[in-house]
């Protein structure tokens, strides 16, 4: 039997060597002794401001705009650029996909476990939006799904 951490021979019945156990105790004590400074105020100051709560009329207007986005998204599934007379919403959807398409190939391996659920969420949101293109909730989910993936890719880029 050898120590799983350093490979040195172990006495019978021992799970690891004394030297590794001693090392770990020392490093754990070192870690616990590191002072953690206050940081929240500085972080909070850099976060985007909390979104203003909108009233129903504004929410409905936003939903209508988002409905246009999903219509554009569904039309622009193909990789071709948007036509010159495309609506602003469909152009926005195309730009989401373009940005994702640009960042995804160079995403680091650390994202390997995080991207598939986001891609699956986009696929599911697209199916849902295709079934109910006038449903503002479905539209909102689709846009949120695009945005979530884009934000993650930007974080790791």
């Amino acid at each position: 039997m050898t120590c799983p951490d350093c490979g040195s021979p172990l006495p019978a019945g021992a799970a690891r060597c004394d030297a590794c156990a001693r090392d770990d105790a020392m490093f754990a004590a070192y870690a616990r002794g590191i002072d953690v400074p206050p940081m929240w105020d500085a972080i909070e100051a850099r976060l985007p401001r909390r979104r203003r709560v909108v009233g129903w009329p504004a929410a409905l207007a936003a939903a209508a705009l988002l409905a246009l986005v999903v219509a554009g998204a569904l039309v622009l599934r193909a990789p071709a650029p948007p036509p010159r007379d495309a609506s602003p919403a469909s152009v926005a959807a195309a730009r989401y996909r373009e940005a994702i398409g640009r960042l995804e190939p160079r995403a680091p391996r650390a994202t390997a476990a995080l991207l598939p659920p986001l891609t699956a969420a986009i696929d599911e949101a697209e199916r849902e939006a295709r079934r109910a293109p006038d449903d503002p909730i479905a539209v909102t989910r689709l846009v949120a799904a695009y945005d979530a993936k884009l934000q993650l890719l930007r974080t790791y880029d």
Partner: protein
Amino acid sequence: MTDERFRQMFEAEQARVYRFVYAMVGAAEAAKELTQETFVRAFRSFAAYEGRGAASTWLCGIARNVVLNHFRAQRHFDRLFDAGAEPERAGGDIPERQLLSRELRGAIREALLRLDPDKRAAFTLKVLEGMSYEEIAAATGSAVAKLKTDVHRARLQLRAELAGYMEER
């Protein structure tokens, strides 16, 4: 609500993330700035993360990228931000500080900085933070086999460099 959940996650994970960053850069002020940057970046993709995996794994992955990007920008890995001048608080009423002398704490910090960044990250997350190899693999994108090799080599290098202190203890 998202802001509240993010704040809760910050409270739960800030110490681990800060300690990891501190071990990587070896200087308190740089560690503070890079930890803040880590949480600002985390906030941007918090909605995408929420509910997927351990927060510590996710945050340490972001922190590692923040630190490595910083290293790249500075074009040097060791002794960042004049690590040798880092003030250590005097020992006092905290048992860990009484246990480890100021000299030994400084020696550990500098020995960690002499590891290459991959080994330093793997060793810090495994030994200082007690994460599993699978969690570290998820955070860093490295294979478990490579991480085990990195931790093993880091351990032997640190043991050799700190041998004098270990004998005194």
